[in-house]
């Protein structure tokens, strides 16, 4: 019944490392060659991913683990190399490949300071292996290894290529995540021990979850909860996120928002809930409440921000709150919505960070107050920003809606069966508060868009003053200087493709609109946002079977 | 009555054990409070000899030769330690005459 192409996942996961191996032998002075190899590797990886999609059996088979591989890895600790793909993993697995490729294309002319494209690209390829591996691993230890592999590359990406506060932000990111994963590992081991110390295979653990008494399970779940919640990030553990996002280079922000955060929510769906259903029921109200606090807190945080990137980061906290709310209902409807929300958030927020990075490249500032009239100066970029803001606030017809709306709706009737049920009044209250959150979301996003996009072009954008407000015309070479300054102070980071002649004294010709590599990198995301918004069933169909299967242990609870 | 007196006066193995414990404590105390490396070193020797005494006494109690043969190993090893230890201590005293353990603290933290 299963296909014979089960080698394809292994290839898809480890192919980026082959690219790394090649790049190790190329001197770092060969920047273009290094970038080209990295992009080709990512493209071939995506091709493998598309082949996976093509060979994937849809319909009723989508709930089964396909391309299943199960070979010995570390027999001494009963951990095996088990990988497989089902309906829940597939969209995220492919998303990771798409995002990596697009980010690399974007990097072609946007390598942040201090350069060294080779190291930058290698780190992204390693990240790709870690992310893809996490989504296909079906063994706890294998999952843990992949989950951790992404840590160091991201740490260096933020710490080396980030902004002013990069060292602080990177360390904060690392310590938070590591704290979570250390507790998570302890929880995994406890789970292993409590189920008879037989196997780390998820399939085995799903089947034997009832061996654990509820009291113990609640504690084990607590360990996993911290591990995954830090990554999501949920409300009390979220403080690393705004710093990491603000300081990370554009590429880092995009990968972080689009994929890394999903590792946490994915962990809840794939591991925490099905292996410990009895504890999940106890924890669900806590998760739900924290999720809603996250929604409101994130929204209020957004309203207080003056920095565009920080605003998007806080909006991530809010959006992941919706995802977690969907998960906390433990219903098929809610978790479907959550996975949909994960993918939609990946596309939309990834796109928003791209835009923020490009705006920063042009104006050297992300202070919302200092911008204005983007639509007049760079209309295409401005309209894309508008569309993404709409998508992000959950406008029906765009992808964001199908993540948010069903998640809120699912809280209307949270999980219940003949023996166990979640508190309906609580979740309905949460539903109402979350709905208020969407209004706030509309508020801050429209407010941000209005201040950035509409109005007269600010003096800054007109090219008369630089980011610090100095009048550029004051200097003797003001005209020459202004052009250089606006398009690329950060050296090779911003080679203009559609820019007018640099040094032109006419301020209105300085700021270029969307460049060619930006178009290539963004178009697929924009198409994704529209297509997923217009035809949500495309993904719900793939998800539903697997979600049902993952929830089976919860359904089977007898309340003993 | 008489027999009890004799039993008390005649040295019992336990006496040696007590003496050994006493010597060991004196030695350990000396290492901890004295600051002259040579004296500390002598105190350690005292501890080692307390150990020897203890081994011999136990050996006697058990009527087993093992404990006594252990003493020879300890003696030989202690001799080797003396050679090395004096070498090290002399080398430091030569560079810093009259150094105490408190003086030997270039590194801290």
């Amino acid at each position, binding site marked *: 019944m299963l296909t014979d192409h089960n080698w394809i996942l292994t290839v898809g996961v480890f192919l980026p490392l082959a690219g790394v191996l090649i790049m190790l032998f190329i001197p770092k002075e060969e920047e273009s060659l290094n970038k080209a190899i990295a992009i080709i590797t990512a493209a071939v990886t995506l091709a493998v991913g598309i082949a996976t999609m093509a060979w994937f059996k849809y319909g009723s088979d989508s709930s089964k683990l396909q391309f299943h591989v199960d070979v010995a890895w*570390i*027999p*001494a*600790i009963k951990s095996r190399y088990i990988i497989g793909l089902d309906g829940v993993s597939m969209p995220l697995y492919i998303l990771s490949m798409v995002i990596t490729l697009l980010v690399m294309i974007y990097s072609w002319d946007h390598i942040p300071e201090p350069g060294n494209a080779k*190291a930058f690209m290698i780190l992204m390829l390693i990240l790709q292996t870690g992310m893809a591996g996490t989504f296909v691993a079906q063994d706890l230890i294998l999952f*843990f290894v992949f989950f*951790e*592999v992404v*840590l*160091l590359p991201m740490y*260096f990406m933020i*710490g*080396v290529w980030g902004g002013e506060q*990069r*060292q602080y932000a*990177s360390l904060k990111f*690392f*310590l938070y995540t*590591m704290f979570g994963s*250390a*507790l998570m*590992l*302890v929880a995994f*081991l*406890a789970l*292993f021990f409590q189920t008879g110390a037989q196997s780390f295979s998820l399939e085995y653990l799903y089947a034997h979850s009832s061996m654990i008494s509820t009291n113990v399970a609640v504690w084990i779940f607590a360990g996993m909860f911290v591990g995954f919640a830090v990554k999501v990030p949920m409300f009390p553990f979220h403080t690393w996120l705004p710093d990491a996002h603000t300081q990370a280079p554009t590429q880092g922000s995009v990968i972080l928002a689009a994929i890394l955060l999903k590792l946490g929510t994915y962990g809840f769906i794939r591991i925490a809930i099905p292996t410990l259903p009895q504890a999940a029921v106890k924890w669900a109200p806590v998760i739900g409440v924290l999720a809603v606090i996250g929604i409101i807190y994130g929204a209020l945080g957004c309203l207080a921000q003056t920095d565009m990137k920080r605003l998007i980061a806080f909006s991530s906290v809010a959006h992941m709150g919706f995802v977690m709310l969907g998960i906390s209902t433990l219903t098929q409807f809610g978790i479907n919505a959550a996975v949909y929300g994960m993918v939609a958030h990946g596309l939309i927020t990834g796109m928003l960070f791209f835009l923020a990075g490009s705006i920063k490249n042009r104006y050297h500032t992300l202070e919302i107050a200092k911008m204005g009239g983007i639509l007049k100066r760079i209309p295409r970029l401005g309209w894309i920003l508008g569309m993404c803001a709409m998508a992000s606030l959950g406008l029906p017809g765009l992808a964001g809606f199908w993540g948010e709306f069903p998640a809120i709706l699912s809280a209307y009737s949270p999980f219940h069966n003949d023996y166990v049920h979640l508190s309906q009044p609580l979740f309905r209250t949460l539903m109402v508060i979350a709905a208020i959150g969407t209004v706030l979301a509309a508020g801050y996003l429209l407010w941000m868009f209005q201040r950035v996009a509409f109005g007269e072009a600010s003096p800054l954008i007109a090219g008369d003053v630089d980011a610090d407000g100095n009048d550029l015309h004051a200097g003797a070479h003001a005209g020459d200087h202004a052009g250089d300054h606006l398009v690329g102070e950060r050296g090779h980071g911003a080679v203009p493709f559609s820019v007018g002649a640099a040094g032109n004294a006419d301020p209105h010709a300085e700021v270029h609109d969307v460049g060619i590599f930006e178009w290539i990198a963004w178009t697929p995301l924009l198409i994704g946002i529209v297509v997923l918004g217009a035809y949500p069933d495309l993904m719900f169909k793939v998800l539903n079977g697997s979600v049902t299967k993952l929830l089976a242990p919860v359904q089977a609870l007898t309340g003993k | 009555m008489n027999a009890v007196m004799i039993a008390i006066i005649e040295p019992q193995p336990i006496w040696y*054990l007590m003496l050994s414990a006493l010597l060991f404590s004196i030695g350990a105390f000396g290492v901890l409070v004295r600051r002259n*490396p040579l004296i*500390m070193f002598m105190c*350690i020797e005292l*501890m*080692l000899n307390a*150990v020897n005494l*203890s*081994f011999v006494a*136990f050996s006697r*109690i*058990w009527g*087993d030769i*093992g*404990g006594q*043969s*252990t003493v020879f*190993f*300890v003696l030989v090893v202690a001799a080797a*330690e003396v050679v*090395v*230890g004096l070498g*090290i*201590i002399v*080398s*430091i005293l030569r*560079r*810093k005459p009259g150094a105490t*353990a408190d003086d*030997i*603290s*270039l*590194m801290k*933290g």
Partner: protein
Amino acid sequence: MLSTLLASDVVAPFSSPKIDYHALAPELVLAGVIVAVLLADLFLEESKKWVLSTIAGFGLLAAFIPIVTLAVSGHRARSMFGGAYVVDTYSLLVKGIFLLAGYVVVLLSQNYLEEGDYYQGEYYFLLLSSILGMVMMGSSRDLVTIFVSLEFLSIPAYMLAAWRKRDLKSNEAGTKYYLLGVFASAVMLYGMSLLYGDTGTTILKGIGAKLQNGSMSPVAVLGIVFVIIGFAFKVSAVPFHNWAPDTYQGAPTPITAFLSVASKAAGFVALINLIYVAFPHGGDVFQPMIGVMAASTMTLGNVMALRQTNIVRMLAYSSISQGGFILMPLAVAGGKSSGNALTAIVTYLAVYAATNLGLFAVIIAVSRKTRSGEVSSWGGLFSYAPLLGVLATAFLASLAGIPPLGGWVAKFGAFRAVITSGTNWGYALAIVGAVNSVIAFGYYGSLMREIWMKPVPDGDTAPIRTPSSLNAALMICGGATLALGVVPGIILRFSDIIKL
């Protein structure tokens, strides 16, 4: 008259012990090499002294051969001298680790000695003697053999620590190491005499048969406590760790690497021998003691390491804290996860040896250029020596326990052992360990930050020239660190079958 005396059976006839030369082959080869080094040193002229390091290196590899032949010749334990000296799978594994670690130390020492104008012959003689002591420790199953092995490995190490005899710091390192080492030996010996007094035998198996939980005499309890305290000094467990940072900082760097890896490992091997063979039923006594020691060792080591500015001193505290992680599984030995604990410790020792030696190799390589031991001297290492920078990052990540580098397997094993004990305080230890592995990243991360994110301190970006022996050491350690993390089976398949 002599003949009549001999013929009389007043004295029991002396039966010479049966010696299994195959089982003793590693020790014999090593002893031969030691003599060869000493003789060669006598006859070689100064300019050719480099031959000595070659002899020492190949000698260590030669001693490895009988270990392989013994390993393939079956899993039967070969017991000699009435059970005082046993060659089994466990001892073969730890001997192998000691020999390979010793080989890497020889590689590290080569240029350091040649360029530093030190006495080479004596150095390798002492180094090999110390390694011989460790190899013997792997097989020691008797209080006396343990004591002799311990001194055999310690006495040369005292001298090696004080090797730079014109440097006061090195003198200080040697003196502290010596005084506290001998003090610890005395304490341990006193404990041994008490154990002997309680059980009437020095053979560990015999002691194990007599000591039973619940019915233990105060003498035996005191004996166990003293013996463990004695070894706690050797493995620099808190609160007996004070000597370690000073000794590590003052000793020549290759010797610091040696002490922090091999010598410490030998202490753990002795502890394993004692706990698994002599006190398997003494859990009530040693478990709480070692548990508290493990928790405080890893915590204090980490906290102290956070405030260091000297790399070697930071690594000294890091090695103390890693020692706490190695102690962690010992705290549940004797219970139902005994087997897991043994696997965990031996795996940890192997991984830790590869990683820490590699890191010291990087330190030696970098200090050839910077001539400084300060953390800040590593600034911007990645920009002018990318290979060294990446290797250092890998070793640091491994020490921090980040997959896919070896360290995670080690930490994982330790966690697994304490959790499968199923006791509440096993879980408590695991949580303490988990929190500590995060704190540890504070200083491992600060080194990484220097390497990747800080500017080069003096602007001197000339590449670092590393001699071939150092390169070999870096490659061996780097390869081992990565391989142990990706396919942990290469060590686990051995460490999982060992028994005591």
